């Protein structure tokens, strides 16, 4: 190839490219007119389609939470043209200062861009929406987005449901840009734990808008649109009737109720009192109402049943009985005398001496101090630490001293000390059973959340294992897929040691301390607790399961600073078990009345001095 030909070759390449480009230009500028159409409808608006958040039902399919439409006024700042600020403010019912402040605030927001839509005013009222829609022509750049907020059909289970609120900067960052300023996200309760399931996936719609801010139709027939995927519906394991009854019974009392189905670990009721109406934390006033609740001295936002540790008191004797047998320091015939107490631990009047079953029935303090002593001073172990560690291990296996892993945010671990704690307090090997004797009757260095109490009852009801308590039974009509909720957690106690203890627990109801909780025709096994505490009057505690064979419900009730376990906790538990097992709770009208009307809150202020 000579040089002339080479130059020619290059020239031919240049000209061919030029010709290809010119013909392409000819095609898209002259032949194909669709581009003119798109350009005339010259604004391509990207609209977000918010998915409907998943609905929440109770275990029987009763609707608890649904969605309600709200209207947000959004704006693309760059598209604002000749805005009549005065009439704009008038429609929105704001003044000039607020208008200017809002702008300043929006511009400070992270990720602000004049070409991106941002929410100018949230949740405008329907009349404002209507007025605005009429004048949309005057307010170029503004448009209304429809979103959904939550509505609660019942006023119950506020802590379980939790609430949704606007995303924070951190949420936006963590989501890799999925969440946009002003989006809703679950902040507590099931709304938070199951955000992924309930939230669904946002969709996008591309709409052509003409220069007068009127929607002209969909861009390319929606070819580029992505549909929103609705959130999944969830069935809680909560029984709405049981929950409602429990909340009514705890009205004007401070405390918790946790009811669990022992076989599955499904939480049937989770009550924290005082509570609040979940419908308060919805809509425009969410922020203000939240602050009010936060400032309330009764702490209605505090989720007691899963986070508050209480001294278990006498209900711990059930666990003691099992540990003693497992460690071979106790059998059903072991008898101890009671002389109205054991050293400095007092006891009440009852027959003496008693064997294990009787000791549980009358809740003899002396008996269980003896059991604790023989456990900790067990000659089988060389050092007290080793013996205590066995105690720790057994208690731990019942779910104490650690968070159980319920699918709610904010679960507490309770209090269960390791031997090292006492070593530090008293010196290595320098302590023994008597040093910590009060733990034998569920006082001292022990703190158990109501959830852990109910879980321990469930473990007794199951004769040796528990299922991790959880609150979501089904997601989109499929069983909760978390494998943890299908695993049996075996305690360190042999199954053969349970029957005698359960007999004792039945005696508690039949002719023991909780006779008041007896329901004719149902075999209930339970144990009362009256827990001393530094905050005032004893906590009234009761845990139970029923029926004795094939248990359907395990329940723990704590009523703070209200006296004996049998006074408040046992009757409330009894009424709730009756409701769950028979569907009725009004067979004992007088008891029901007394419990519903009981107002303990006024007594909380006076700290009654404690006597034995």
């Amino acid at each position, binding site marked *: 190839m000579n040089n002339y030909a080479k130059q020619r070759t290059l020239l031919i390449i240049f000209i061919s*490219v*030029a010709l290809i480009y010119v013909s392409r*230009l000819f095609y898209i*500028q002259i032949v194909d007119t669709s581009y*003119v159409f798109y350009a005339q409808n*010259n604004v*391509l608006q990207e609209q977000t389609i918010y998915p409907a958040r998943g609905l929440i039902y109770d275990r029987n399919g009763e609707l608890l939470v649904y969605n309600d439409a709200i209207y947000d006024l959004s704006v693309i700042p760059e598209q604002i043209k000749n805005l009549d600020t005065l009439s704009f403010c008038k429609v929105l019912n704001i003044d000039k200062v607020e208008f200017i402040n809002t702008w300043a605030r929006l511009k400070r927001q992270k990720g602000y861009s004049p070409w991106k839509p941002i929410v100018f005013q949230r949740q405008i009222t329907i009349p404002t929406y209507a007025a605005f829609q009429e004048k949309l022509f005057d307010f170029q750049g503004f448009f209304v987005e429809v979103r959904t907020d939550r509505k609660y059909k019942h006023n119950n289970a506020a802590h379980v449901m939790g609430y949704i609120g606007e995303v924070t900067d951190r949420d936006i960052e963590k989501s890799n840009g999925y969440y946009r300023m002003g989006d809703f996200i679950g902040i507590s309760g099931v709304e938070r734990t199951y955000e992924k399931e309930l939230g669904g996936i946002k969709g996008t719609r591309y709409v052509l808008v003409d220069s007068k801010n009127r929607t002209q139709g969909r861009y390319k027939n929606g070819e580029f649109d992505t549909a929103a995927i609705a959130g999944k519906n969830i069935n809680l394991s909560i029984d709405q009737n049981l929950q409602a009854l429990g909340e009514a019974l705890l009205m004007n009392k401070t405390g918790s109720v946790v009811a669990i189905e022992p076989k599955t670990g499904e939480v049937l009721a989770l009550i924290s009192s005082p509570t609040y109406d979940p419908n308060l934390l919805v809509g425009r006033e969410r922020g203000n109402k939240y602050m009010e609740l936060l400032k309330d001295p009764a702490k209605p936002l505090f989720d007691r049943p899963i986070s508050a540790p209480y001294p278990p008191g006498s209900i711990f004797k059930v666990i003691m009985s099992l540990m003693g047998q497992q460690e071979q320091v106790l059998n059903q015939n072991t008898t101890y005398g009671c002389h109205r107490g054991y050293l400095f631990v007092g006891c009440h009047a009852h027959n003496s001496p008693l064997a294990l079953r009787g000791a549980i029935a009358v809740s003899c303090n002396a008996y269980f101090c003896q059991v604790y002593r023989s456990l900790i001073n067990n000659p089988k172990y060389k050092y007290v630490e080793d013996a205590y560690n066995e105690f720790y291990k057994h208690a731990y296996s019942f779910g104490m001293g650690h968070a159980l892993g319920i699918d709610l945010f904010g679960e507490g671990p309770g209090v269960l000390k390791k031997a090292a704690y006492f070593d530090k307090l008293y010196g290595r090997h320098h302590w023994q059973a008597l040093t910590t004797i009060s733990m034998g009757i569920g006082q001292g260095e022990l703190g158990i959340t109501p959830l852990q109490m109910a879980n321990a009852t469930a473990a007794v009801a199951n004769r040796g294992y528990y299922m991790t308590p959880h609150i979501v039974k089904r997601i989109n009509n499929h069983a909760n897929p978390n494998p943890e909720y299908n695993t049996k957690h075996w305690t360190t106690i042999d199954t053969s040691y349970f029957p005698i203890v359960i007999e004792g627990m039945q005696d508690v109801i039949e002719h023991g301390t909780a006779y008041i909780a007896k329901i004719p025709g149902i075999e209930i096994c339970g144990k009362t607790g009256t827990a001393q505490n530094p905050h005032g009057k004893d906590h009234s505690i009761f845990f139970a399961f029923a029926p004795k064979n094939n248990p359907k419900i395990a329940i723990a009730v704590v009523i703070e600073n209200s006296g004996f376990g049998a006074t408040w906790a046992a009757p409330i538990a009894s009424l709730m078990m009756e409701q769950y097992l028979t569907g009725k709770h009004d067979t004992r009208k007088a008891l029901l009345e007394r419990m519903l009307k009981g107002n303990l809150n006024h007594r909380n202020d006076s700290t009654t001095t404690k006597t034995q």
Partner: protein
Amino acid sequence: MTAQQPKPSRIDWITLLLYYIFVIGGLLCIYASVYKETNPNIWDGSMNYGKQLVWIGISSFIGLMILLVDEKFFYAFAYPIYGITILLLILVLVAGTTVKGSSSWIELGGFRIQPAEFAKFGTALALARFLCGYNVNFEKDRKIQLLSAGIIILPMLIILLQNETGSTLVFTSFILVLFREGLPGWILFVGFMLAILAVMALLMPPLYIIIGLAVLAVIFLLLVRRTTQLIWLTLGVVILSGAMVSSIDYVFENVMQAHQRTRINVLLGKEVDIKGAGYNVQQSKIAIGSGGVWGKGFLQGTQNKFRFVPEQSTDFIFCTIGEEYGFAGSLVFIILYMILLYRLLMMAERQRQKFNRIYGYSVVCILFFHFVINVGMTLGLMPVIGIPLPFISYGGSALLSFTVLLFIFIRLDANRVNELRGAYD
């Protein structure tokens, strides 16, 4: 001979005129693309057009300086200039600023410069200097060929490390220069076939292509007179092509970054990505397509006002031409650009000195490559590779480097008459 000042008559005024048509036209397009009714002042130094005006001034001044420099300077300093640009490129890797994902910028007292732009004329000078020696025979000498390739590939590698795919690809335009200097035509042809194979490899599974090639090979062998040598050769071609197709598939899936994959997939129509690359191209096509025959007129473009075309003042500047001046305006632009390329090609061919010729061809090929990719991208014919449209796009480094690139050649060309006269002296 003493230092020669070019007489004004020897400067190629046509090229200079075209240069200013493009630069001024470009400024108007930049103004139109970022124009806002609220701020129509073209002298505003905070806006792109104001800055570009400053850069035009700087470029003109430097261009003038280049015209005043002794033409031997570029020959003598070709290697040092190349060396400096390479050093700058390495410096960017160490102390660069990252802008939009590519770490190819250096901050210099408030100004950002992009050394990759300057590496273009650095490489052109070095290549011209290397190949112009009397005892250099590019056509025959394998060592010379390899060294030439090395001069071109070295800056490419460094720029690739800066994540600047676009600027890297620009250096492939030197293959046309090498073609003029004796690179056999069949390499160009094979390169073209390989490009087609590569596109096919991205479009369909490698296995199908290999089967197709095998079928073609069998048909080919049935039709021609078969010699053992030819059979082996055909077999070799099929195997090598198969290997290439498979490795391209592998590189595409495993080595390339997600955004690069998306861009290519969008171009090939395999993927619709309305928010990313596909959106850009779609909006760019709407802007150009809506221009019609005569365009909407200066400042009347609607697509740019709402910022639907991204990067409109830089990579997508052609949209403004298409939208505001229509098919007629675009045609005029392409014709003018072709006249410039043709003019430069003529100028390169009329050089007596090999150095000048090779440098001239480099200028032509670089300008051509930018045109192909940039305009092709806005028309949806090329992948979205961010390289500027010479003289038109907003960007100081780009304008300055194209000016230097062009003016060095104008300066070299202005001396040709002296050479002639020198021969008779």
